[in-house]
């Protein structure tokens, strides 16, 4: 019984190749149930609220927000960083874990990458509407113009950000699409003639499963994973530089890049679990996203959550240990000032709640992990709010101290971004294979022993 020491199967329930195709394609080929329509109705209404509020604030101007001359960045930039962070877990799963040969990733990578794309779309809205005159948004990119040409300032982190996020979106979309091609061919070859078959034929590019192509495909996948890995680190590093290069106490810290990257993966991992815990149940994919995924991803949440906790402690300690009075004040003000409630919400959601995952019992309960991921999502949103608003609202000059509260327009925009995210995700679950069939087929036999004589 040497098997006992070996790792458990990646796919439970003794599935064969045919089962994988059937199980993954079934939700796409059936009519959506009442639960899906209900979820879609909610998500789409939220999206509409967002469309209305964005239209209103563009038409009227960003005076509709609760910003003032002291707190010039608040809700919108919080949401921007929050959504970008969510996206990062998808790339961690699809690229970084691929390079680390973590085969369990095959069960969740397709959905996680889709989540990345949708989250980056949500994130992209905020800097654009923050411009106030979004129709001039293209000014952020250098192009020959009749003003000189006057070029953009390449020394600005905001310009870096525009390049980083556009590249991130394009490369993530490419990576996702390349991964999808074999599965699109699978769907094409089982679809009945009609619109679906035509569309899948176009997008599967004539894939025929020839091994010469597979051989190149594997190389391309490896190269893209190798490119996406430093890319994802660079993106959140650059996002953190938006803050760290400013001389604002509470922002001007060298710890920011690693702290932001860890926080991003932490929040994104929580969001992947939130989505997958529902999706696996709703779509009958329990065999593919199973106890093992829950266990490993929970451990990733503890790890990254603890790194984030360490970063909170470090920045607090260094601020007090250093001799910058403004820095000392900002951190004491975070923990005990007017926004202390936000600070302690952040600490309890991000540092304390995930520690429950040390217990195997909790880690193995789908409900408990689901609840914890919700807390982490909330906590990570508050982290960005705390960093942005508490650092700004107490200026160097006490006469310009101010406060901030979001207006209904800003809240509706946040709700709208969640609406966009969930609408896209629900549509994705209906029209594309949510599990990478061609990848899961390759690891089907991992950890499954004694099934047949080799």
């Amino acid at each position, binding site marked *: 019984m040497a098997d006992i020491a070996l790792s458990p199967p990646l796919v439970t329930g003794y599935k064969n190749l045919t089962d994988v195709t059937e199980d993954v394609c079934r939700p796409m080929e059936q009519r959506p149930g009442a639960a899906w329509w209900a979820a879609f109705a909610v998500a789409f209404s939220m999206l509409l609220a967002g469309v209305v509020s964005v239209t209103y604030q563009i038409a009227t101007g960003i005076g509709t927000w609760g910003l003032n001359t002291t707190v010039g960045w608040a809700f919108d930039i919080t949401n921007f960083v929050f959504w970008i962070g969510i996206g990062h877990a998808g790339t961690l799963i699809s690229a970084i874990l691929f390079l680390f040969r973590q085969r369990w990733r095959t069960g969740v990578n397709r959905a996680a990458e889709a989540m990345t794309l949708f989250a980056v779309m949500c994130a992209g809205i905020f800097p654009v509407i923050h411009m106030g005159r979004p129709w001039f948004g293209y000014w952020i990119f250098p192009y020959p113009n009749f003003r000189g040409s006057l070029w953009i*300032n390449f020394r600005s982190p905001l310009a870096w950000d525009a390049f980083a996020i556009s590249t991130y979106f394009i490369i993530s979309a490419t990576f996702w699409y390349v991964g999808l091609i074999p599965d699109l061919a699978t769907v094409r070859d089982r679809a009945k003639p009609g619109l679906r078959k035509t569309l899948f034929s176009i997008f599967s590019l004539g894939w025929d499963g020839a091994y010469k192509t597979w051989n190149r495909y594997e*190389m391309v996948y490896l190269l893209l994973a190798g490119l996406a890995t430093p890319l994802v680190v660079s993106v959140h590093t650059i996002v953190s530089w938006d803050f760290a290069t400013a001389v604002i106490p509470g922002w001007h810290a060298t710890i920011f890049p690693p702290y932001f990257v860890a926080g991003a993966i932490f929040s994104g991992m929580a969001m992947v679990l939130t989505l997958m815990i529902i999706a696996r149940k709703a779509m009958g994919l329990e065999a593919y996203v199973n106890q093992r995924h829950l266990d490993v991803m929970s451990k990733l949440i503890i790890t990254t959550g603890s790194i984030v906790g360490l970063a909170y402690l470090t920045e607090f300690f260094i601020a007090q240990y250093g001799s910058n009075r403004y820095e000392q004040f900002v951190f004491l003000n975070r923990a005990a000032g007017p926004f202390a409630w936000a600070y302690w919400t952040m600490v309890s959601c991000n540092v304390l709640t995930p520690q429950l995952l040390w217990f195997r019992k909790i880690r193995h309960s789908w409900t408990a992990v689901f609840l914890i991921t919700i807390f982490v999502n909330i906590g990570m949103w508050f982290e960005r709010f705390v960093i942005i608003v508490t650092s700004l609202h107490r200026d160097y000059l006490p006469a310009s101290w101010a406060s901030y509260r979001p207006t209904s327009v800003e809240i509706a925009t946040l709700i709208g971004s969640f609406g966009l995210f969930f609408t896209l995700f629900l549509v994705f679950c209906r029209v594309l294979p949510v599990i990478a069939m061609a990848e899961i087929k390759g690891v089907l036999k991992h950890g499954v022993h004694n099934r047949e004589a080799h």
Partner: protein
Amino acid sequence: MSQFQLLGIFDDESGMVGAIKAARQQRLRIVEVYTPYAVHGLDRVLGLKRSRLSLVCVAAGGLGAVLKMWFEIWTAAIDWPVDVGGKPWNSLPAFVPITFEVMVLFAGLATVGAFFMVSRLRPGKKPDLIHPRVTNDRFALLIQETDAAFDVGRVRGLLQSHGAVEVSERLVEEVPA
């Protein structure tokens, strides 16, 4: 000239790999193998060379980086220098982040583009499916007759002995390359 081919269909990876090994030992000409997923280690069994797409990746990445670095220096230091907080015209360290992003963008898109080109993948192309279930749960091994010593019965037996669920004969018109 038409070519005679034998097509073995397998429902299992290990059977197909065994048949390929035996066929290669007997110096049979394997035209192509069709699989529903990237079978691990099959490149070595088939003796395929490593893809040279990594060269495309390096070259395109390098090109992107050089072009972008040149563009940043040219715009910021030569074409229209603008004093931003007293920073030097050519602020090389500050130009690194965008250079990196553009390098990744060029490398990624060029690699995928080159992959589509060499594998002849393009939208709307009609797939030449060897078997309707080859993208689902079947593995196909296509062997071609090379000379008079090709014994159909023996090759058929070889495929079947490794668990081929289906063996069929094909005559294909050789398309001049």
